[in-house]
């Protein structure tokens, strides 16, 4: 089922007055795609998911499921009519029902015949490895087990759309990693269109076929994970995606006979040859891995003083100030210590310019 969203707006009324949580979002989710909504808290991603589920009504705009208008001017279908399933951050298992009862719940509401319920619940349980838990109550399960029950409950009814609301946030780091891999595999096997909300950019990058970055109720960029990383559309996406985050210095591009000179804080950082650029004030960005730091002077390298050196294992994260901004860079050179003088070269081809 493909989902298309047009100019979707959602306003809430609070004590502070009218708050626009979503301010005109357009996007298309393809059939069978693993689609991720990524953004900091308060960006409207959960509201967008609730609107897609039908738990809330949009203020204006349109949501279509494969051509059928589910929400729009004069039309609204609740979650009952959408055949969606959802996995919640808090699992939201029914505490008074057994694991079997939980997984069977959507089928019972749909008045599925009992033998079919049994068969489908057992199949879903086997798929998620919770067969031995079917007789237990949710209160007796660990966090990871509960999450797998919640996923089983979501997939058992063969929904057209699977929605995930930060489902891994309550798990510890190791379990989160394992569940992430499982989840991706499961989605591939089932081929159900999935929309996944998270604030964790690593989760977004690893799970998503495509990722939509939201901030302040607006879509910032919609691209594949590598596209977001390699071609961030603006300063926010540039610094939100990637760890450690991209360095950003506010400066300007100046046209010279040799090309465009990128400078900030009175320091010329690099010479850019791309003819698509234009002169004027600009943010100059570069990823920490795209800065070469050496102890010896090199052509195009700028002298810096290392403020701190944090070993990350394979690499060392250096930080220094340059052109009026704090920069960080990754190096493998273990002799670059705090207080040392060094030379940093920003690889010109790897520089991102934001107007």
């Amino acid at each position, binding site marked *: 089922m493909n989902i298309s969203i047009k100019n979707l707006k959602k306003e809430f009324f609070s004590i502070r007055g009218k708050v626009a949580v979503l301010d005109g979002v357009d996007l298309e989710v393809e059939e069978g795609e693993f689609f991720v909504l990524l953004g900091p808290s308060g960006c409207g991603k959960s509201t967008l998911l609730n609107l897609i589920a039908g738990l809330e009504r949009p203020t204006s705009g349109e949501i279509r499921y494969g051509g059928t208008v589910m929400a729009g001017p004069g039309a609204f279908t609740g979650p009952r009519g959408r055949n969606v399933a*959802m996995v919640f951050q808090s699992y939201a298992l029914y505490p008074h029902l057994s694991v079997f009862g939980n997984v069977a719940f959507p089928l019972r509401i749909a008045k599925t015949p009992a033998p079919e319920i049994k068969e489908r619940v057992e199949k879903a349980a086997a798929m998620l490895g919770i067969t031995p838990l079917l007789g237990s109550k949710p209160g007796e399960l660990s966090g990871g087990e509960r999450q797998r029950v919640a996923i089983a409950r979501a997939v058992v009814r063969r929904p057209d759309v699977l929605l995930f609301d930060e489902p891994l946030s309550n798990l510890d780091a190791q379990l989160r990693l394992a569940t992430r891999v499982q989840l991706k595999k499961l989605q591939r096997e089932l081929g159900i269109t999935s929309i996944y909300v998270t604030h964790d950019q690593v989760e977004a990058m690893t799970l998503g076929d495509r990722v939509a970055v939201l901030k302040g109720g607006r879509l910032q960029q919609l691209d594949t994970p590598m596209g977001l990383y390699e071609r961030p559309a603006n300063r926010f996406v540039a610094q939100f995606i990637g760890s450690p985050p991209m360095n950003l210095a506010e400066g300007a591009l100046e046209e010279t006979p040799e090309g465009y000179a990128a400078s900030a804080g009175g320091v010329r950082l690099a010479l850019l040859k791309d003819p698509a650029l234009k002169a004027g004030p600009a943010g100059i960005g570069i990823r920490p891995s795209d800065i070469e730091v050496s102890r010896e002077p090199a052509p195009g390298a700028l002298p810096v003083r290392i403020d701190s050196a944090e070993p990350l294992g394979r690499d060392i994260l250096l930080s220094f100030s340059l052109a009026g901004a704090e920069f960080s860079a990754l190096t493998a050179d273990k002799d670059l210590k705090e207080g040392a003088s060094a030379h940093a070269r920003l690889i010109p081809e790897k520089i991102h310019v934001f107007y």
Partner: protein
Amino acid sequence: MKGETAEKVFLWAGAAGMALFCLGPFLYMFAVSLSRRPDLIGAGGFTLANYAAVLGTPSLHFTDYLLNSLAVSALSAVITVLLASLAAYAITRLEMKGKAAVLFFVLAVSMFPQVSLIGYLFQLMSGLGLINTYAALVAPYVAWILPLSLWILVSYFAQIPRELDRAALIDGCSPLQALFKVILPVALPGVLSTALLCFIFAFNEFIFALILTTDHAARTIPVGIAMFQGLHGEIPWGNIMAASAMTTAPIMALTAVFQRHIVQGLTRGAVKG
């Protein structure tokens, strides 16, 4: 060491004094009900004759009163909890303006002294021809107990995570199904203890029952016992106490069994909301 001993002594003395103060009337009730001579406890020995008399004298209508009480209280409790559940669900879950106003208005209604309503209620029930029926009692009881049950249930429902009913809606429930298949079962301890409280309130009620009933067709046990009369106008203390003891016993048993839930329900209603 000495301070601790003194502390213990005071603690026990205080607790014993309190227990005696509260339970004294009950002890007195049982003692009198078992005495051969009610005006002189223990004189003339103990007997079960009072109990036999109460149960064995058809003109006293003890069993009629007791059955009336049980029926009226049970009906009131069930209807109240059903209405209060629907209202509490709307207040805690649905988009609705002026939720706080509703809660406070309901509270204000419950502040009316019963006595100020009784004259009008009698007129109303006479006009409707309901005097001396269960309906005459159940209707005012529901109105009277509803505010308290609503407040208790609102605080119970507010503690159930919203994601649970969102999950129910996603799983295909209508809002009413979400209430009956998820919220109420999850809140069952609270709902049961609220129902029990309602039952006890209705069971103990006196004024409404006194004015709105005329005989054993609808009269409840508290009024019935108060109207026991012996021959020649004497007050039959032995019978009254025996009947009271038999009436108190089931309530005490219920309370003892559900004690923990009731305390939780009461304090929840009191502290939260």
